[in-house]
């Protein structure tokens, strides 16, 4: 250290003495202050190894020179070069074809141009660069450029460092940017928790952090409550920070682990036992037991016992010995942090955070359920018309969803603008599936009214034909339907609660569909006629309504809505020829559970199925398959108690 100061002082004197005389002549007494330090550390700078670089970085960072920050930035950016002729370091920039312009660190002056051959680039690896980055933080915390200050805070958040606590505190006061200031304060609290020597200040910081849901806060608090398990032969001493006394044989401490910590004779594992027996086979016998009889565990133990008695192998501790050894010592979980007040505060803060996180997770789960419910609703609303109102079982409904999704895909191939293509795709998908629905109604379903089972079979035939047709046209690989950028993001409320924009859009779309459905059914002539034809086609016909035409239009409407739902579903799921299959059973379930013929029932059914699905998934998050299984079983049981769904039609509207 003394030597370094001496060098700096000397260099400063030289600088003063020679004044402006140090132009191109970089040798001898003309060295700048930082150059002197760099030369001093030249060897390890060039070696550039993560293990040895620390003194060089410290030397530059601790120099107190205004140039230090620039040196380290250049160094980190791999723009520092060494002139081979005299070994001096410069910032270099390629200004022409193999022409490098050198800049002196101390004066900032252009010191000439060289070809690449005359320079050696200093190439710090990522480990070294991150060390430089940490050292840079203290300079950057007060940098006039907000972007650099933000970088510094991010770096601090990633890699906390006790030395930086004071510079960070000092920089908070002068921080002009409010959001950066908040982040600085939060980081300062976390550093305080980790490194502050004063106990009261740490506890205060822990308590302040207990309202924060961030994962990093939990990561900062968790080390405080980390425990190690120790064995104490004479009881737990008073001077340790005790977390809990443990009993061997519980979840926290297994008997084998506990026994390992005592000084009893080592346990013999089954594998060791086998090896010992194998090693001591003597003329077809082990310890007096014939080898053939060793398929019996009891005889094996006996053979090992005989070997132990003969002194060939180490004896196995008996159960009583193990128990005695365990009883002789006390096992305790000990906090690694010595201060009980701090660990208590940390435990309390973590408990509070856990409760908070739990509540937020429930809220997040609610949002998820809502969005899943709206997807089911979207898939089912077309069915609510064709199946719910008209009573036609259309197994090809899923394929109408698929047709809608593929329409969206084709439109996107033609119209590259994502927003415009979605806007075009929605009416087009409606048109395509409306036409398909009308065709299906005219050609097939019309002949099968009042024969629901046969309708089911015939539309199933249509379904497999359409699916294979889609496979023939579009291939089996999934086709992407890209959503516009404004639908790509997510609304993040806090670290726990977030929801993607596309799901919000689907929710809104579901609400719009509900409104459209209600409007058409209750407020338009088509809705009136549809309801009339459904209730009594003969009487409706007598009133001058053409039942055939009304059925055709209603079926087309339901199919068209399925097409639009297909575009929406395609936006967040991959479009394949099987996309409809994935929704058809759930859609029917939604309609049946909700109550056939009532749109509010469908809405409730979708909400219930969505909530149920997410609820079950919450118990076993890794397993969505199980969630679907239990959901279907639940629905089967639910139908036992409400065979006509949540909202059952009563009286004449209920039909037969």
């Amino acid at each position, binding site marked *: 250290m003394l030597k370094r100061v001496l060098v700096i002082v000397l260099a400063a004197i030289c600088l003063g003495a020679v004044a402006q005389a140090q132009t191109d002549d970089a040798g001898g007494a003309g060295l700048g202050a930082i150059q002197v330090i760099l030369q001093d550390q030249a060897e390890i700078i060039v070696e550039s190894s993560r293990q040895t670089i620390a003194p060089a970085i410290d030397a530059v960072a601790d120099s107190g020179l205004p140039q230090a920050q620039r040196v380290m930035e250049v160094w980190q950016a791999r723009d520092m070069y060494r002139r081979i002729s005299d070994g001096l370091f410069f910032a270099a920039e390629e200004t022409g074809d193999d022409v490098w312009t050198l800049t002196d660190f101390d004066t900032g002056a252009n010191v000439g141009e060289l070809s690449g051959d005359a320079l050696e680039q200093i190439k710090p690896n990522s480990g070294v660069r991150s060390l430089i980055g940490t050292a840079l933080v203290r300079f950057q915390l007060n940098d006039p450029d907000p972007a650099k200050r933000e970088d510094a805070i991010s770096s601090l958040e990633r890699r906390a460092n006790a030395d930086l606590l004071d510079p960070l505190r000092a920089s908070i006061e002068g921080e002009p940017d409010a959001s950066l200031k908040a982040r600085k304060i939060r980081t300062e609290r976390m550093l305080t928790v980790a490194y502050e020597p004063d106990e009261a200040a740490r506890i205060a910081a822990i308590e302040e952090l207990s309202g924060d849901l961030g994962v990093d806060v939990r990561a900062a608090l968790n080390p405080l409550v980390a425990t190690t398990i120790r064995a104490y032969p004479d009881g737990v001493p008073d001077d340790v920070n005790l977390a809990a006394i443990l009993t061997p044989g519980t979840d926290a401490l297994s008997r084998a682990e506990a026994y390992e910590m005592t000084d009893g004779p080592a346990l013999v594992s089954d594998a060791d036992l086998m090896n010992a027996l194998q090693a001591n*086979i003597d003329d077809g016998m082990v310890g007096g037991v014939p080898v053939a009889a060793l398929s019996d565990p009891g005889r094996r133990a006996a053979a090992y016992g005989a070997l132990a008695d003969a002194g060939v192998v180490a004896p196995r501790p008996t159960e009583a010995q193990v128990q005695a050894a365990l009883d002789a010592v006390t096992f305790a979980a000990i906090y690694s942090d010595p201060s009980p007040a701090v660990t208590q505060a940390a435990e309390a803060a973590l408990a509070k955070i856990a409760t908070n996180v739990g509540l937020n997770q429930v809220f997040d789960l609610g949002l998820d359920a809502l969005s899943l419910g709206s997807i089911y609703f979207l898939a089912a609303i077309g069915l609510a018309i064709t199946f719910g109102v008209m009573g036609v079982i259309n197994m090809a409904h899923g394929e109408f969803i698929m047709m809608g999704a593929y329409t969206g895909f084709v439109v996107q191939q033609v119209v590259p603008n994502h927003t415009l293509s979605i806007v075009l795709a929605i009416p087009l998908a409606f048109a395509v599936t409306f036409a398909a629905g009308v065709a299906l109604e005219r050609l097939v379903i019309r002949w099968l009214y009042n024969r629901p089972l046969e309708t089911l*079979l015939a539309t199933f035939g249509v379904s497999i034909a359409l699916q294979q047709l889609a496979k023939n046209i579009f291939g089996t690989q999934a086709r992407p339907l890209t959503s516009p950028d404004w639908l790509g993001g997510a609304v993040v409320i806090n670290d726990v609660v977030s929801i993607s924009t596309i799901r919000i859009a689907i929710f809104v779309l579901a609400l719009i569909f509900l409104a459209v459905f209600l409007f058409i059914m209750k407020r338009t002539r088509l809705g009136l006629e549809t309801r009339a034809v459904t209730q009594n086609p003969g009487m409706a016909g007598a009133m001058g309504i053409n039942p055939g035409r009304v059925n055709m239009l209603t079926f087309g409407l339901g199919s068209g809505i399925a097409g639009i739902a297909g575009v929406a579903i395609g936006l967040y799921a991959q479009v394949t020829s099987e996309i409809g*299959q994935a929704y058809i059973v759930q859609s029917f379930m939604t309609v049946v559970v909700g109550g056939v013929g009532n749109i509010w029932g469908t809405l409730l059914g979708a909400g219930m199925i969505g909530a149920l699905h997410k609820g079950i998934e919450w118990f076993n998050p890794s397993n969505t398959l199980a969630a679907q299984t239990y959901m279907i079983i639940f629905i*089967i049981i639910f*139908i036992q108690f409400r065979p006509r769904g949540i909202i059952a039609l009563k009286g004449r509207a209920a039909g037969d």
Partner: protein
Amino acid sequence: MERSFLLKNPSVLVFLAVLAMFTIAVTVMSEAFGAGLVSTSFVKTLGKTLCLALIALAMDLVWGFAGILSLGHFAFFGLGGYMIGMWLMYERTRLIVEESMAQAAIPPTDSEVVDAIGSQIFGVVGSADFPPIWMFADSLTAQLVLVVAVPGLLAFVFGWLAFRSRVTGVYLSILTQAMTLALSLYLFQNDSGLRGNNGLSGLQNLPGVTASQDFVSIWFFWASALALGLGYLFAAWLVSGKFGSVLRGIRDNEARVRFLGYSVEGYKLVIFTVSAMIAGVAGALYYPQAGIINPAEIAPIASIYLAVWVAIGGRGRLYGAVIGAVFVSLVSTYFTGGQAPNINLGVYVISWVDWWTVLLGLSFVLVTLFAPQGIGGLVDLFARRQHPERHGADLGPDKGALRESEAEQ
């Protein structure tokens, strides 16, 4: 009694004779016992087809006779296959494990053998322990009982729940479809205990049998033919008596049968359970010939295809179901196997592998619309039987009432 049953059902004798002749013909032409005109793999295909005919028979019992369109029968079929597959896989792995362990210096304990079998079987799903459902896997007798018992129990519980709450018609169909979807999703999990989506494999090897697949396949072919023959006899006996009459009554007008004092739910439950058991037997014979079973086999689509076969063959008559299953599955094998020549239209080459399913779907629509009697209806053309024409407008408020065109006849 037996004489009168056969006299009343001449089709049974005809069917059994045809089946016997077919079996003998295939045996004579097989690679194992005869000229080798029929390859072993085709013998397996034929054996599997007979099993499919058996489950089609089971389907016809519930759908054609009792009017319950079950879209979940492959759940029972698959369960039967899983039950026999558990024994086949356990026993074969046990033989392999014991052979390799015999090389060790010290003979293994029983629990070590079981552990080694467990890690062999469940290694693919990252486990080594036998789940409780494998409790009886070491016993052939127990697993053979389970082949019938497990599908029967599932059908009984499901049927009891569904029929009790008077779920009928399409609602029941959707519910059965949900059941098979739930089962297949459940089995897709790794921790279902049946190896997740890997399923059970290597089932074509009978443990302890050293004969080549040529022989094994023909044995299974015989077993399948025998099962189909017995199943047909049983089904024909079941539907020819009073029980069958009540079933048909339920199919045509459930409410009326109930008002006559019959326990409709009981009848439905019995036929549904019996049918599931037959399906379980069919599956237990099918999957050893297929060699592998996995949860995709019991996806809802398979059961819907079953309905397609029965509908094309002609529901409500036992031989119709068999004809439908044999015809459609063999023709499907022919077209999707790539043997059928492509049709070159000049601008576009129609490849049957791609277009067969489209054709099948459309022809299914046509059969439903124009030939509800299916292929079996051709028999009626010879027998000159008349069927009511169900098209036209309603004449009364009840959906079972005569239609316009029927009344005119």
